[in-house]
């Protein structure tokens, strides 16, 4: 079973959130964007430990823009569940709440609404009532079965793993040890308890321990007098078998150190592992049929490399296990909230739910990539890319997609000259290392993450043939708007494509820079870096007479230096100048992205 869609209306940060989701959820977003509120919304529907008093919301829980309250304003939170048909128990619990079949989708909804028996407009909290219902019928109240059999657990952000582990009542060890105790043979337990008692007595009865015991007794007597003596003695804890098992404690480093000596990070990890284990136990003991486990900020106290190590495999199927049976995944849905790029960048792409705040009126929206229709290869490529770039794309407010590292160096500097500080604006310049923009365009488009973006690509003219950019641009535009049809010509195509954020650099980047008025910087950089005397001579010649430029020579001379190295130097040079000269494609691309922020 999995969550397939979330819809929230008028709740806290959310005016109208509607997002399709994959198997697990990694809720990514900056502070205060509403990650915890999103989890709380889910709890209102799914958490059996939440009392009714907490389900009775308050007026301040309405989204700010929904005020003043109108008679038809209500808070609704809907969770769609699917892929439960193979599990007959889940199917039994959920089928009454279906809103679609083949495949079945069940919808569970929390609503906070003005009482229907009011005569006037609702003004105060007591005018409101809440309900949790299934399907599309508000009178079909959710059976308590649902939350009991498919419960949600929350591990809050500020948990104190160490003290929870030490406190028996709260310890995630408790269900595990209790189950152990239940499984063990009664006689065997008795025998062990007996052995334990004997060993304990043996220690307590050594002359050394007895000596100390007597000394303490004597000291107390001296201090408080005979009448007040409580006759203390040294011994171990009582040794009833079940209690004995409960006293089992976790040790780390091969039993050398107790958990209290572990770092905050590792005790958190241990806590998490135990919690998941006890959940699996409950499913195998048939107490529940699925678990939703929400973990707030699991990155807490973990070093970046540990975060990446842990969460890279955490939400992925464990394919390395040999047999079908062992590969069986526990029936659970993990919901993480994180603002760590390290966690986000190694999570499966389909699990990412990106929360972003919007202005005017202020509210948060959520995006995922489920609707983008990625192929397996595209997903693999993008996941690797996000991994290597530490998920930069996910946190960007705008993105300029470019072909290679040359642009990566140059675009931010050119932008700065134009008066835009891309870092401050939150705009990333991302190289796709080639010309296959399609997966990135899909990822950023409105069908997926919905991040404002522009594409800058070289024209790459060919003698006697259509330029290479034409095909590229056509496929990008078709990806964005499948109904688009441009088969002939390029001039209209390029002009139209600009409206969709695709910009074609005349000829190639280096040539365009030369032509836009930065020929001096270009040629000087060649002179500075090239060890080829013919190249430096050519550079001088082109600088003095720009019309003598041979484009292919310029490119080959730069390639000889290395495009990256060349642009690195060039960007330093541009940074020190005041000129605002810029190839028009780059200028337009930057303006296109900045204009949408």
């Amino acid at each position, binding site marked *: 079973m999995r969550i397939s869609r979330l819809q929230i209306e008028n709740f806290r940060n959310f005016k109208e959130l509607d997002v399709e989701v994959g198997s697990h959820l990694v809720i990514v977003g900056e502070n205060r964007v509403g990650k915890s509120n999103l989890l709380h919304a889910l709890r209102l529907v799914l958490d059996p430990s939440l009392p009714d008093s907490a389900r009775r919301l308050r007026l301040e829980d309405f989204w700010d823009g929904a005020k003043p309250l109108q008679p038809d304003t209500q808070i609704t939170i809907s969770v769609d569940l699917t892929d439960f048909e193979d599990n007959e*128990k889940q199917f039994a*619990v959920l089928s009454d*709440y279906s809103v679609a079949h083949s495949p079945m989708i069940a919808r569970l909804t929390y609503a906070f609404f003005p009482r229907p028996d009011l005569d006037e407009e609702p003004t105060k909290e007591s005018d409101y009532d809440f309900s949790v219902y299934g399907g599309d019928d*508000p009178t*079909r*109240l959710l059976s308590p*079965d649902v939350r009991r059999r498919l419960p949600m657990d929350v591990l809050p952000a500020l948990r104190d793993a160490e003290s929870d582990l030490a406190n028996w009542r709260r310890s995630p060890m408790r269900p595990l040890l209790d189950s152990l105790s239940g499984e063990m043979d009664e006689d065997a337990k008795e025998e062990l308890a007996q052995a334990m008692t004997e060993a304990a007595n043996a220690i307590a009865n050594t002359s050394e321990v007895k000596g100390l015991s007597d000394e303490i007794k004597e000291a107390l007597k001296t201090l408080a007098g005979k009448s007040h003596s409580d006759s203390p003695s040294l011994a171990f804890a009582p040794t009833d078998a079940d209690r004995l098992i409960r006293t089992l404690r976790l040790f780390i480093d091969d039993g050398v150190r107790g958990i209290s000596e572990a770092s905050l990070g590792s005790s958190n990890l241990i806590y998490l592992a135990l919690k998941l284990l006890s959940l699996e136990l409950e499913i195998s003991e048939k107490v529940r049929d699925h678990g939703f486990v929400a973990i707030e900020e699991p990155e807490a106290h973990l070093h970046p490399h540990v975060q990446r190590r842990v969460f890279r495999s955490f939400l992925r199927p464990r394919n390395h296990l040999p047999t079908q049976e062992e590969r069986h995944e526990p029936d659970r849905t993990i919901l993480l909230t994180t603002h760590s790029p390290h966690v986000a960048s190694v999570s499966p792409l389909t699990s990412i739910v990106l929360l972003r705040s919007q202005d005017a009126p202020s509210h948060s929206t959520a995006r995922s990539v489920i609707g983008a229709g990625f192929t397996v290869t595209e997903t693999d490529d993008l996941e690797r890319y996000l991994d290597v770039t530490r998920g930069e794309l996910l946190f960007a407010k705008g993105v300029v997609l470019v072909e290679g590292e040359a642009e990566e160096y140059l675009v931010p500097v050119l932008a700065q000259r134009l008066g835009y500080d891309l870092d401050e604006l939150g705009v990333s310049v991302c190289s796709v290392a080639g010309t296959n923009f399609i997966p990135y365009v899909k990822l950023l488009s409105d069908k997926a993450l919905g991040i404002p973006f522009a594409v800058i690509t070289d024209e790459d003219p060919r003698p006697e043939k259509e330029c290479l950019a034409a095909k590229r641009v056509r496929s990008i535009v078709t990806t964005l708007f499948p109904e688009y049809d441009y088969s002939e010509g390029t001039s209209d195509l390029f002009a139209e494509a600009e409206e969709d954020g695709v910009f074609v650099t005349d000829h190639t980047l280096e040539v365009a820079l030369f032509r836009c008025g930065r020929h001096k910087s270009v040629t000087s950089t060649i002179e500075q870096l090239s060890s080829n005397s013919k190249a430096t001579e050519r550079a001088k010649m082109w600088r003095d007479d720009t019309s003598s430029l041979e484009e292919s020579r310029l490119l080959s001379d730069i390639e000889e230096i290395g495009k990256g190295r060349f642009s690195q130097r060039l960007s330093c040079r541009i940074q020190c100048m005041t000129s605002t000269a810029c190839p028009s494609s780059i200028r337009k691309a930057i303006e296109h992205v900045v204009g949408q922020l």
Partner: protein
Amino acid sequence: MLWGSYDMAVPPYQLAAQQLASNEEQWAAYESIGNFVALAGPGSGKTKVLTTKLARIVNEDVEEPRGVACVTYSNECARELKRRLAALGVQPSRRVFVGTVHSFCFQHIVRPFAGLGGLDVNSPIRVATDHEQDTCFGKGVANAISIDENPYNWRFTCSNYRRLHLDREAEDWYGSDKRAARIIEEYEKQLRTLGLIDYDDMVLLGLRLIEKHEWVRRALRAKFPVLVVDEYQDLGVPLHRLVISLCFRDGEAHSRLFAVGDPDQSIYGFTGARPGLLKELSARADVESVTLRLNYRSRQDIISASEIALGESRGYESANDDVGVIDFHHRKGGLADQAQFIADTLVPAALESGAASSLGEIAVLYRTKNEGDVIAEATASARLEFVRIDNNAAYPKTPLTRWLEECATWCSLRGQSGSPSLRAIISDYLGFNHTLASERRRLDAMHELVACLRNLGNGDIQFHSWLAAFSDSCLRSHLSVDPTMQQEIKTLDTLLAACESDGKLEDWTVARFGGQGGTPDHLNLMTLHSSKGLEFDVVILFGMDQGIIPSYRETSSESKREPRRLFYVGLTRARHEVHMTFSGWRDTPWGKKRDGVSEFVIELRKKFAEESQ
């Protein structure tokens, strides 16, 4: 250790099971693990077997949250099953359904899946009142045939046709009676225009959904891996096809079936029931089947007599050796004479001899409401308290009136022993209104009811004022918002009208009304049909004249089969004594008709005499 001993306690159903162990067939049913059909003779303990087995299935076979659906013929049967199951520790819940095939289809198929399954019905679904049905039917007949046509002439034919011809796409839909088919289509169109479905629609639409959509079948199987059916012989073709769909459909997973019934007691042919369906089921290779032969109810003479009456030997045996009484009483003065004889002579004698332990252990059974009128009057004249169940009774027994009886008893007893549980009263009340869309509204409704019951006074007050106050303070507004309860509101009106002066319940007290729920102090007057599933120390079959049973319409040997089974059902209700009264003639609108004593009685009397010689 206190809770340790509680832990070790044997669950009630296992105690009950110990009593099945000595009866080989009953034990086979209890131990069955696959599809199972018990052909159960009268008094053979079928309800006990069914409830005990159901409790076992709930506790041992089906893991939470999956469940068991137990489907039976009528609300009265369901009521009895619930009562028996409660004693075994099984309460109806989301995973344990106990109810009629209609409520099963409505609650678990039509309501959740009608929209998704593409049925053309409104949401929320509104159930038509009898009056609305009549109006729609009238228009249907007018549209399909002509406005001069009397709808009454078509009503019976059409409802029968509708229950028997289930496949609208099939050729024989128009084939066997084109005009009836057209009327039905027009009638349904009229209903849908008003956003209504009728009672039969619940089953017909439910069946349509289940047969059409594989996902509906899967959803139901997931919820109910075991299906238990009581009174299978009465449930008709739609239920049979529903069972086939869930339990025996080729190429699909199956729910498991546990069914009990008795083809000999099939008396609902007019609703489409056929005794053959259960026989067919029990003959399947993938169904284990036994016959429960031992009769724990009736004495051997009564069993022998009933087999003679049935015309077939079943080899049933009585579990005890006492001698029973079968007596024939010829009263020449017609029904009134018979009735007076019953009230003045037979009933007091049965009480005096100890054959009946109380008045509530005596039942007078008859064919139609006409005989009911006569016996009710005689009984009233003899100043005997009675409960009457037939279509001319003061009010029909519906879930609402049954519940009102409980409320009346609760008010009379106020928590003394024998008082119905307030919890059950509340839970039924909440069940009457499906539109309470939050826990708080349910709580409000519950508080309202409890406050109302507290203020309604005790058993001595006038039933009329009690009911009027109840209706005005909360009941009517509670019912009226639910679109499925419109007919019950009409029932409430009927009941209120019956309390008015000259009504049948005039001068009744609350306690007396509560007593209608069944007490030892009331004589039972009911139709043979209503006696189904019940048992009494003494049974008096009233009006056993030719033309009544079989009726003057039932002349062919084929059409006499069902009244014969009905006669058989009547006989087999008795533990100790059966009395039959007859006159040899009957009243008709055209005067006395001398058709003689019922042929079933003559036959029985003759063979009985032969055998006793």
